[in-house]
């Protein structure tokens, strides 16, 4: 494994200076057409250019976790922690990759409960802080392949989704599992404004088939890099399904329901011809607007040393999960 650099301690430009500079530049006419307004989808770039740095002090604290280490690294080299923390898709906090880190730090994580119900014998609510202590947490080093054709390798900490669900005793009618993200426009600017939130209908919802959910690779993550999740990564509780595109990994979950019919999934609803319900990583089925045959690797190299590699069927987990889909036409059920 390569050495993981620490987050750089950057000088922070005082807020006032930063604001003045922004106003100055806007005044010079470059903020034409309002696109450099704070509301803009491009605020992230402007913030970056004008010196709004993220330092440890402005980040929500993350608690160290106790967990069983993942010893089998499968020869994967980890994506540096600072990149995992600063390159996120979490449209509830804005559409630019750096928006979630900038806008999510105030997310109130305690108390946080998750309601589990539907086709189960023992519905209930789970307090995430208890989950952190009571459950036996495991580390899982997984490849993570975004539908946008970039990939990371992330050391998650969490519990197997299947083990979690079994506590609630799913009935024989439980054919699918439905997940829902927090809906709180006061905390999530993307839910307040369609412009910030990329025109998505919130709350974000996702779903899995029950056999997918019960598969030992499916993880309910509570942490990464040995500490609790950062808000931008979906704190306090998120889904990780390593053989599927990243958008299946719903963040900041408040509700899990076992259901009989295939539940709705946000991106699938928005653009069904581009994002399927299954969303298994598949180099043979392109996104209509880009190739899925290869992916840009996000590792510790600089932006000017871009590297790509061939994308693997089921993101490299085919020997473990392909049988879930035997007999299915994966071109049709993408």
């Amino acid at each position: 494994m390569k050495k993981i650099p620490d987050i750089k301690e950057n000088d922070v430009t005082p807020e006032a200076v930063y604001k003045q500079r922004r106003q100055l530049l806007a005044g010079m006419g470059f903020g034409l057409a309002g696109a450099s307004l704070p509301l803009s989808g491009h605020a992230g770039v402007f913030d970056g250019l004008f010196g709004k740095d993220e330092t440890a002090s402005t980040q929500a604290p993350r608690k160290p976790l106790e967990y069983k280490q993942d010893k089998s690294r499968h020869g994967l080299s980890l994506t540096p922690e600072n990149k995992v923390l600063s390159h996120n898709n979490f449209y509830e906090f804005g559409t630019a990759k750096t928006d979630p880190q900038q806008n999510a730090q105030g997310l109130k994580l305690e108390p946080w409960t998750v309601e589990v119900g539907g086709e189960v014998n023992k519905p209930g609510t789970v307090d995430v802080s208890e989950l952190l202590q009571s459950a036996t947490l495991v580390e899982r080093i997984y490849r993570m392949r975004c539908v946008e054709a970039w990939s990371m390798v992330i050391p998650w900490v969490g519990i197997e989704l299947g083990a979690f669900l079994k506590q609630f005793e799913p009935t024989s009618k439980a054919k699918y599992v439905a997940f829902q993200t927090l809906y709180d426009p006061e905390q999530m600017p993307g839910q307040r404004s369609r412009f910030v939130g990329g025109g998505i209908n919130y709350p974000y919802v996702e779903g899995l088939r029950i056999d997918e959910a019960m598969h030992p690779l499916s993880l309910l993550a509570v942490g990464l890099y040995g500490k609790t999740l950062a808000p931008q990564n979906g704190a306090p509780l998120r889904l990780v399904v390593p053989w599927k595109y990243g958008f299946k990994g719903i963040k900041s979950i408040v509700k899990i329901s076992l259901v009989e019919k295939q539940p709705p999934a946000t991106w699938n609803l928005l653009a069904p011809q581009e994002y399927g319900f299954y969303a298994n990583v598949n180099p043979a089925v392109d996104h209509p607007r880009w190739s899925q045959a290869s992916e840009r690797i996000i590792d510790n190299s600089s932006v000017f040393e871009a590297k790509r590699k061939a994308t693997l069927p089921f993101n490299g987990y085919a020997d473990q999960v392909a049988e879930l889909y035997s007999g299915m036409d994966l071109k049709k059920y993408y």
Partner: protein
Amino acid sequence: MPKRLFFLLHILVHVIPAFFIFLLYQAAINGKLGGEPVEAIIHFLGIGALRLLLLTLVISPLARLRGFGPLNRLRRPLGLWCFTWAALHFIAWLWLDLALDWALIGGELVKRTYIVVGFLCLIILFALALTSLPALMRRLGKKWKRLHAWIYPASLLACLHFWWSLKSGWIEPAIYLALFCFLLALRKKKLANALPW
């Protein structure tokens, strides 16, 4: 218009786009665009090219105001900066995103509608940039005007490319499209004569 003002504007037309490229580079290498700035770079250059295109088209209506005729001379540098930004946007995609994988690049350039549209736009901007050399301008004479009317289809292609490049939402490209349409509407008469077809 006062000579001094024109002089200042002329300098700004060069300094601002150059300065922003420098800022972008600094921000990228200092990790201010997050740990993974490729998308931010591509987006910033794309939006910048679009805004420069808009500015280029704002000039001639403004120059029609009494006394502001000299502004017309800013069209050429603005157009050239627009092409420069668009070219850098393209290069960033080739190099930083697709890692110069030429087989992949070739495929994407013909298969993806929004990339095809962006590429067409870039080719037009390239042709206009090449033929903006004064010697060529003179040589082309009347034809030059017709050729440079292609900036109008190019601006619509750029909006379309922007629109289709988005994963969700449409508000921002629609705003740009409306602004371009407004600028085109101001030239209704001229357009009717000059359209390339």
